[in-house]
């Protein structure tokens, strides 16, 4: 009965009409604000609904991490919002792919309403075409707020904040003598480093004074050397995370912090502090220029009736109006982009807001062209290398430039899909013929009834699983033959596969080459699964002892690592492996050993990842083993004991063989899951050092999400991973079958 209903539901579902954009119905607004910022936005929207315009608006708050992918899925299907609030960084890509609509400046209150530099980042030209060979830039979003970093300092440690980097270094020597870190900030992140980078005269897309550009420029190298000097003199702590910055500042162990307005929520009560603009770089006389990012309101690019677009525009106009900007500034403490709002006393008298407004004069608006998204990875790589002491400024610059060229992959030439279509059609026909032959053979053998019975029993599970997997799987496989750029797909044949298998711009045994990553992945999978099974089985056997007391207590305690969301526990493990403040080095030092710099070395970083994943994964295997152990009849142990078998012999000859049938599935699937499980690597070592602990799937994710949305290339990675695992599983299923008729 369930089967019939399910099939019916699917059949009806397939013919359901696509959602139509309605003229009426409330406007939909998506955002990812929280706390006071969210409250201010909601109040603004409520006031909009009450105003003469009187349009109902639905507001939906979405986790920041899911917002971009949700927008990209929903907007082309007509399920997206009318208006959404997002950082400006994707304007280049989304304007080309049609996810957002170009705005008429007059419809959102005129360009004069905003600070000029907040508009710059929101402009982009449409791709050139035959009709318009040289398109003029257009405005794609309405700036709401701007953000940048500035210098926070403890007023009980510093009277006047340093105005130049020389003053900073002088002050540093003094503070260091008192065992206080002069400065704490995320030095390994290019976002934070950018202030020094531009202060030293570095450029990203324009040629600098020497005609160089990007990471190879003199300014870039000088800025890297400056950071290396900060690290060498121990003016900044090592392996800095956001949590460490807050903790050092709150505990009076760091005097200054470079951070953005979001840091306000992390400063503990009772800490005396103030904000100042970042110092001027003494060597160049230029101010340190942090990135300026813009949060803007965008109107969805999905085809929508003109009246609806007009209502969306009036909502955006409302949100950017001085009155609503003042509300956001006063209640949400946001740095609003509407100029006239700053005439308000409440905003002007707010020392925090005023300090960031002052910093705005010396910021660098972050570029919105898609190429900007290729800057972060090389920048972070260079800084991490530098801070580990592996190289100097010049070496870091070379490393960054090399990575930048490796990931700025030119689009492969278009190729003809015809041979592939013929091949695919041939394969499909072959498959159909194979199935048909199989059915005929079954009929001839008179097994038709048996087959029907078997398939009826497995149908509910089969239907549910395959429909939702097979279709996306086939689509994914097909995508591997296409290149994606700004919403356009070009057929490129096997070009992606060729690039990946020839290791592209990397040496064969260098991190990020397919073969090196494969080696690490196999090692990662083997070690993890072995540990999960060994620890899980061992604990399960202990817990299975008939006379053991307190079993329920142990069982519940031991499953905790599985029960608590791993996003937080993985980061806590990362903290435990911290070189200076981690509990693990604390223990080593307690034993009289030297602390280890866990993430500067491939072996130790891999070890840290494995520890975390073993801790996260053993409870699952323990539960599986506990269940499986119940299938072993106890009288077998008695018989073995009567025969005088030792504990180990009983384990080896009774427990293990009888456990096999129930354990094999968990091991097989454990291998598949671990092979593709990159989030622990991402959270703990983050691939350090130099991506040498990254596994295959990490690369696929980077190409799909961090490097210009190269979905086709990512799909090719996924397809190769599939082929590898397929080959492995066919072999191991056969082996298991031959060995013991398990299947």
């Amino acid at each position: 009965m369930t089967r019939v209903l399910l099939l019916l539901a699917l059949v009806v579902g397939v013919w359901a009409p696509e959602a139509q954009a309605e003229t009426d119905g409330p406007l939909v607004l998506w955002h990812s604000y929280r706390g006071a910022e969210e409250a201010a936005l909601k109040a603004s929207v409520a006031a909009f609904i009450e105003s003469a315009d009187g349009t109902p608006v639905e507001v939906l708050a979405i986790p920041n991490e899911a917002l971009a992918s949700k927008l990209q899925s929903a907007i082309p299907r007509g399920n997206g919002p009318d208006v959404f609030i997002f950082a400006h960084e994707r304007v280049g890509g989304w304007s080309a792919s049609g996810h957002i609509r170009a705005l008429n400046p007059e419809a959102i209150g005129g360009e004069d309403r905003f600070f000029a530099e907040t508009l710059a980042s929101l402009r982009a030209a449409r791709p050139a075409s035959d009709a318009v060979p040289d398109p003029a830039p257009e405005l794609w979003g309405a700036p709401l707020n701007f953000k940048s970093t500035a210098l926070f300092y403890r007023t009980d440690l510093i009277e006047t904040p340093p105005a130049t980097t020389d003053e900073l270094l002088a002050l540093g020597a003094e503070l260091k003598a008192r065992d206080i870190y002069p400065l704490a900030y995320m030095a390994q992140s290019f976002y934070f480093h950018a202030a020094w980078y531009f202060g030293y005269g570095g450029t990203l897309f324009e040629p600098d004074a020497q005609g160089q550009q990007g990471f190879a420029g003199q300014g870039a190298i000088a800025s890297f050397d400056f950071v290396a000097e900060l690290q060498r003199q121990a003016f900044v702590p090592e392996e800095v995370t956001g949590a460490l910055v807050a903790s050092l500042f709150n505990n009076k162990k760091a005097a200054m912090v470079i951070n953005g307005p979001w840091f306000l929520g992390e400063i503990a009560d009772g800490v005396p502090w103030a904000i100042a603009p970042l110092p001027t770089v003494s060597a160049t006389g230029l101010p340190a220029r942090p990135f300026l990012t813009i949060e803007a309101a965008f109107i969805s690019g999905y085809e929508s009736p003109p009246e609806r677009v007009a209502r969306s525009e009036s909502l955006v106009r409302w949100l950017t109006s001085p009155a609503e900007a003042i509300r956001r500034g006063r209640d949400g403490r946001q740095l609003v982009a509407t100029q006239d709002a700053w005439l308000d006393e409440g905003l002007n008298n707010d020392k925090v807001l005023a300090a960031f407004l002052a910093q705005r004069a010396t910021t660098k608006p972050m570029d919105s062209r898609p190429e900007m998204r290729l800057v972060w990875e090389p920048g972070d790589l260079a800084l991490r290398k530098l801070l580990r002491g592996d190289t100097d400024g010049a070496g870091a610059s070379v490393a960054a430039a090399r990575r930048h060229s490796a990931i700025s992959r030119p689009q492969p030439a278009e190729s003809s899909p015809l041979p592939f279509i013929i091949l695919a059609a041939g394969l499909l026909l072959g498959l159909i013929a194979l199935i048909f032959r199989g059915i005929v053979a079954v009929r001839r053998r008179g097994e038709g009834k048996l087959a029907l019975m078997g398939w009826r029993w497995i149908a509910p599970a089969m239907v549910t699983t395959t429909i939702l997997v097979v279709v996306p799987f086939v689509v994914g496989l097909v995508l591997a033959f296409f290149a994606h750029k700004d919403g356009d797909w070009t057929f490129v044949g096997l070009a992606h596969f060729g690039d990946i298998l020839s290791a592209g711009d990397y040496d064969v045994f260098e991190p990020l080459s397919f073969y090196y990553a494969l080696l690490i992945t196999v090692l990662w999978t083997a070690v993890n699964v072995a540990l999960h099974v060994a620890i899980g089985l061992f604990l399960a056997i202990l817990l299975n002892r008939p006379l053991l007391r307190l079993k329920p207590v142990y069982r519940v305690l031991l499953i905790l690592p599985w029960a608590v969301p791993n996003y937080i526990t993985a980061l806590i493990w990362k903290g435990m492996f911290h070189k200076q403040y981690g509990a693990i080095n604390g223990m080593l030092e307690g034993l009289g050993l030297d602390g280890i710099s866990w993430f500067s070395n491939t072996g130790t970083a891999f070890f840290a990842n494995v520890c975390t994943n073993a801790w996260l994964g053993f409870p699952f295997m323990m539960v599986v083993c506990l269940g499986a152990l119940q299938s072993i009849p106890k009288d077998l142990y008695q018989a073995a004991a009567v025969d005088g078998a030792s504990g180990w012999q009983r384990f080896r000859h009774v427990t293990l063989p009888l456990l096999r049938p129930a354990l094999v599935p968990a091991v097989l699937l454990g291998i598949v899951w671990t092979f593709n499980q990159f989030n622990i690597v991402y959270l703990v070592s983050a691939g350090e050092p130099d991506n040498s602990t990254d596994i295959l799937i990490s690369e696929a994710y980077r190409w799909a999400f961090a490097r210009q949305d190269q979905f086709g290339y990512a799909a090719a990675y996924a397809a190769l991973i599939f082929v590898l695992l397929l080959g492995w599983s066919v072999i191991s299923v056969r082996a298991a079958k031959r060995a013991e008729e398990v299947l």
Partner: protein
Amino acid sequence: MGGVSQDTGGLGGKPSWWAQTWPHLILILASIVALYPILWVVKTALSPGQALSADPNPFPTDVTWEHFAAITGAEGFWTQAKNSLIVSGATMFVGVFFSTTAAYAFSRFRFPGRQVALTGFLLTQIFPGVVMMIPLYILLDVAGLLDSLLGLVLVYSTTAIPFSTWMLKGYFDTIPKELEEAALIDGADRWTIFYRVVLPLAKPALAVTALFSFMTAWNEFILAATFMNDAELFTLPVALQRFVGEHQTEWGKFAAGAILTSIPVMALFYALQKHLVGGLTAGGVKG
């Protein structure tokens, strides 16, 4: 248990003091390792402010309940908790019910296509999800299953069912066929045997698959946040992930939320564990 204990390694007699003690020592050590990182979660949840504790002391100095109060008092918390329970509970039932029949057929019938189908279940887990999101979204949209908890349950089931089927099949294989053959001779049909004879014996494996299926759905947020357009349909992990911002995470609230979301898992496990140690050999041995 007939007077013979696994503890002694010999015949009869009471286990020695040491044989009774060492398993406790190991289990206590393992429990400490399991608990130690979680103490920081608890500390972060109970300390004022939103910073993730970075100092080596795992015990809180100032205790506040504000984060727990902020979570449970937040708009929609109880709706999200309800949604999470519905989705995870339904995934658990779909996972267990659909896979038991399939697993039984795989274990007992040698029907044509069996090997292909069994391998097919494994294959569904192999393709990395990285490029499947947008096709899956379109598929659910076409089927009218976006914005519905049912759609989410079906998606989660694609992970829950293959594992459960394989796990249960392995377990069914260990149950002697003689029991069923006797019942068949007595004139019982397959369904009756399946429900009356086999399922009760497979309780430990059912408990494992139930817990696993529940967990597949319980902590997932990316798909849930992408497929639902209505805040009324969000699940707890979606709400929890909202505390993670682009630049800054509200760790106090996140930790409190993480602890709250793990409580139902513990409760479920506690309820299931008596079945984990029952089954085929339950006679005479109590856990």
